[in-house]
């Protein structure tokens, strides 16, 4: 943990972040003016359908972008310092896996099949901290216990572990350097209900015991509520609503958020889920004005203009004209 920073100042601030992919059909605006703030010991859920730019956001933050990605613009400040401007070398030494770790989508299937999992979990410590093998393995054993795997599994190969255990091992790998922030991209989407729930329990425990901050990227509304302090909903490369979990799950403000909540199948509710008609727009050539307008039952003339961001409450932001103080929202 950084000791110099003021504990009340945000850990990570993202300001007007933009990133394009170059494709044969022209540029794709995957991240298109995102503003977010993550505080210490806070879990921010970034929610959205596939293709909304949420995984690209994670890749920008950790600089794990593919070759066809353009240079991101905007600012990403970690403890007030712009890390987007750092050289790759300094970013690797000072940020990636030292302060911010990433659990990529399907990472559990990316473990090296011919290396014992213990070695792989210890690797970040040896590379980023220069620890000896013995010390790194000892710490990896602790991380294993923390995520709920017996330490003797360190000697196993990935194929000897179940899917749930491999996901825990990947989580241990992200925690082993004791980062301030862990970014999780769909950490439970390939897992069973019971395994999912127990991994969410592990994350809750780590947040409580270590004070780690999380960015949880997912399309799964129900699972996201297991960890969320705050929720940012993305649509077509932009954040359309950002709110405390309480407000988002009980009284969402953006029409898209409301329709998304109504589309979730619920076990303990009579009402059948209602699908959202239509498809998200192309990120190559997003429509002018509000990007959700074509699917929105409450659109009106003003939606032809790009919506401003309104604040219905403190720390609650909505990109929708309905919430203009003079509007009908």
């Amino acid at each position: 943990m950084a000791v110099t920073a003021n504990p009340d100042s945000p850990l990570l601030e993202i300001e007007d972040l933009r990133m394009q992919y170059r494709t044969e059909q022209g540029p794709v605006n995957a991240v298109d003016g995102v503003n977010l703030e993550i505080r210490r010991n806070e879990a921010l859920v970034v929610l959205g359908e596939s293709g909304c730019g949420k995984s690209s956001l994670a890749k920008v933050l950790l600089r794990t972008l593919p070759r066809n990605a353009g240079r991101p613009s905007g600012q990403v400040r970690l403890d007030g310092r712009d890390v987007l401007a750092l050289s790759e070398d300094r970013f690797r030494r000072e940020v990636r896996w030292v302060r911010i770790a990433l659990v990529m989508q399907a990472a559990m299937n990316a473990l090296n099949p011919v290396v014992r999992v213990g070695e792989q979990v210890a690797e970040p410590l040896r590379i980023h901290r220069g620890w000896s093998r013995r010390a790194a393995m000892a710490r990896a054993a602790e991380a294993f216990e923390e995520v709920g795997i017996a330490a003797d599994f360190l000697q196993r190969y990935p194929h000897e572990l179940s899917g749930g255990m491999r996901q825990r091992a990947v989580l241990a790998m992200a925690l082993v350097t004791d980062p301030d922030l862990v970014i999780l991209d769909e950490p439970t989407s390939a897992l069973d209900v019971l395994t999912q729930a127990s991994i969410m329990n592990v994350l809750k425990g780590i947040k409580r015991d270590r004070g780690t901050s999380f960015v949880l990227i997912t399309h799964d509304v129900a699972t996201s509520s297991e960890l969320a302090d705050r929720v940012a909903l993305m649509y077509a490369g932009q954040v359309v609503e950002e709110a405390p979990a309480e407000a988002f799950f009980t009284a969402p403000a953006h029409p898209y958020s409301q329709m998304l909540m109504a589309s979730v199948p619920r076990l303990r509710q009579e009402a059948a889920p209602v699908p959202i008609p239509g498809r998200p727009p192309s990120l190559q050539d997003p429509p002018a004005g509000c990007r959700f307008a074509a699917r929105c039952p409450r659109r009106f003339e003003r939606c032809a203009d790009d919506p401003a961001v309104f604040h219905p409450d403190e720390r609650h932001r909505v990109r929708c004209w309905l919430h203009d103080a003079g509007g009908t929202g």
Partner: protein
Amino acid sequence: MNTRAQQEPLLVADDLQTHFELRQWGFIRTGTVRAVDGVRFTLDAGEAVAVVGESGCGKSSLARTLLGLNRPTGGDVRFAGQSLAELRGAAMKDYRARVGYVQQDPYGALPPFMDIRRALEEPLIVHGIGPRAERERRIDAALEEVGLTPAAEMRGKFPHQLSGGQQQRVVIARALLLRPKLIIADEPVSMLDASVRVEILDLLHRVQREHDIALIYITHDLSTVRHYAGRVMVMYAGRIVEQAPVDDLLAAPQHPYTEALLSALADPDPANARHMREIPAGEAPSLVTPPPGCRFHPRCPQAMAGVCETRDPPDFHPAPEHRAACWLREPE
């Protein structure tokens, strides 16, 4: 036991077993995977039932056995009164025409080099449906039925030009083409985006009702069964441990495993983040060496010493249409 038992059910699985032999170097037997191990249920014509279970519980092996893709190693499946084991050649082909299959991965279900028309015409040709104009008519009707319109335009597309949801619609259209009596949908939406899942489930539900097709909906996601199935069967380690009408199962689960599944499952709620969930320890057992007695006993919070680890629980009937394989439900 079944109030609708006046007529023969559409499908009967009677102590069904599908075991796979594990061999080393192709000939030394090293074990047996008991993927389906004594499954009993009946399915009425036009009925929708969900099979719920974790991965590795044998639910896909059950699907493949019911489809005739795996031969059962024990027990029997009867479809419209006829045993599947007796079906050979033309009779098996005829059976396959009456049972549609919607698999998990739409991206792998459609041949990438065939346009939609060819992919849909193939089963019609195989089953000798003609002439060509009749096949074209059926293809267009099926595409319209699943909402892929205009059909004339969709016919010429290739799978890679379609979204995952559209591909799954094509797979459903293909399953409907031969006018089946039963559709087996194995995790039909787990690879799709959350917002598309409900659309596809709605579609399956609608065609199932409109054509009075029976549906076996296999899923790991209990939260979707409520609106898309009338009855639920919960599978654990190769067996059905509980089956009941959906509302009964949700309101009063009788098997501790079902209780665990229900308590692990979140509906969106900000309160979820404030407490830990009760999850039974451990993982689903190996199907090669399942535990003796009740297969859930090593993880069961209510296991009774001297009973659950030694004796295999039979099905008890806590309510008329409710069955649970658990010693806790043994009548006094």
